[in-house]
């Protein structure tokens, strides 16, 4: 005992309901109300005029990836291979090289993400010890008409800016 038991009255057994027609008329009145309201003023429609009006993307949305940079524009990534190791879809391919700017020992020479393989799970972002890879670009629609353009390179990943401010991103729990 203890759980509240709520007995729900079963409907559909009274004579008026078994006659169908009255209930059907009620239902049709409801649908006609919707039609009339929308015909009278089509601003009442529950639709977003999509390509022109874009949806609001929250800071925690996992969109397309980007690589973050230091203030001087060099990549934060040190090619530790954490993300590549963690990736369940095996879509990240990194090639490490020697770092010359003195910020660390290694840097990526090549950093490829195959967006056709990516499942947007965000494990790469979780795994990164230096906050070098993020999915905060707010890009949710990745389309093209050839396969090659879905293979993102290092330059492209570094060039894409984040869609939200640092405070918002931190507030999102990252």
């Amino acid at each position, binding site marked *: 005992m203890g759980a509240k038991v709520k007995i729900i009255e079963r409907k559909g057994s009274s004579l008026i309901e078994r006659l169908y027609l009255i209930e059907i008329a009620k239902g049709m009145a409801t649908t*006609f109300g919707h039609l009339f309201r929308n015909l009278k003023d*089509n*601003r*009442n429609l529950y639709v977003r005029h999509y390509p022109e009006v874009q949806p609001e993307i929250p800071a925690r949305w996992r969109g397309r990836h980007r690589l973050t940079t230091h203030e001087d524009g060099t990549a934060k990534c040190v090619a530790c291979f954490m993300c590549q190791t963690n990736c369940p879809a095996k879509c990240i391919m990194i090639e490490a090289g020697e770092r010359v700017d003195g910020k660390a020992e290694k840097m990526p020479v090549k950093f490829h993400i195959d967006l056709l393989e990516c499942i947007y799970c965000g494990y790469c972002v979780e795994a990164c010890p230096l906050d070098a890879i993020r999915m905060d670009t707010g890009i949710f629609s990745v389309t093209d008409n050839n396969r090659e353009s879905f293979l993102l390179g290092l330059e492209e990943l570094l060039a894409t800016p984040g869609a939200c401010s640092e405070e918002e991103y931190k507030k999102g729990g990252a």
Partner: protein
Amino acid sequence: MSLLDYLMIAIRVAFSAFIPLCFVAVCVWMERRGAGFFQDRSGPNRANICGFRAAGIVQNLSDGLKLAFKEDMISDHIKHKFFFVLAPIIVFFTAVVSFAVVPYADTLVLGGKSYLMQGIPVDLGILWFLALAGFGVYGIILAGWSSSNKYGILGGLRSAAQVISYEIPMGLAIVSLLVVYGTVNLNEIAQFQGKLLFGFIPLWGAILQPLGMIIFIVAAFAECNRTPFDLAEGESEIVAGFHVEYSAMKFAVFFMGEYVAMFASSAIIITLFFGGYQVPFLSTDALISYAKPVAFLLMLSLPVIMYFFAGWIRRSNISHYPRENDPRVVEANVYIKCFWGLILLLELILLIILFCKSGGSATTIFVALLQVCTFLLKVTMMIFVYIWVRWTIPRFRYDQLQKLGWQVLLPLALLNIFITSAVVVALS
């Protein structure tokens, strides 16, 4: 036969053949936009020609073009290719021809000769419709069988069982109607409904036979394979039912056949129960004698209706997001100008009627045109009811469908016959 005779034959046949086809576009448009508005979404509203979307009708054109240019393929596993191709033709042909006996205006008297305003001037009337509506299902069964597909054959079988179950209540509902009207000729039935009951209620079938009307409309929905009786193509159970193997233009013919059948059965419902082509409260004779006042009233009311319609277009046809130099406002202005042009043309025609000799051939043609417009308006409203029901009621289960047909509609139809006959015998 004079030139006028040939002209009248051509006009009547063309009307009977092409109006249902034109209404396919209207039906599909109403269905898709209506479905959208019933469900609080907008429906197809993007396809356009040079920015003109015509409230979504352009979408029909693009869909039609797509279906016409699609590869017309027949799978290798289909052995009876002749029957496979024949099936959509039967469905479409019977649907178009079943409209041929429906009168869309009262008998037109021109130069001392009278012309029956229906595609095929025969007296078969409702019997012709019953025969052809029943024949249309052969196309569906043939399609299901020749598809060599489990879903196809199930759809065909369901359709066959459904049509057999619902032809009987439909026929019995018609029997009680025939007891009232005393004729099978649809034109005479429509003329009968031009009278007034107690001087102020139109003597429509809906008032004389309310129960018969409900039975007939339910059975007509089932005959058209429309929701809530669209078991033959129940998507959630048997993919697409009888037309699962059809593609491209063969599918389009099925699709158009369905809508033409809907138009034809709407026309029959209108003719039997809602006064056919009769303008409410004004029989043909009254219209001919009052042609000038009616024309004058129309001349006054048309601009008023157009004024409000233009306001509605202007309010509806705008972009609902900030946009510089909104092209939809320009579009709306063009539509409004086109409609005003149309109204101006109608006003001119009405003006000619006003200055013509009353009771002459111009008046009779005007009355016929008025009745055609009334008929098409009523049919459009009935088609709207079809669409309205489709987006309100879910599909019946198969056993519920058979139970409704045999255990509810059939006894009710029989009861209706007894009551009607008793009343008719008592009154005569």
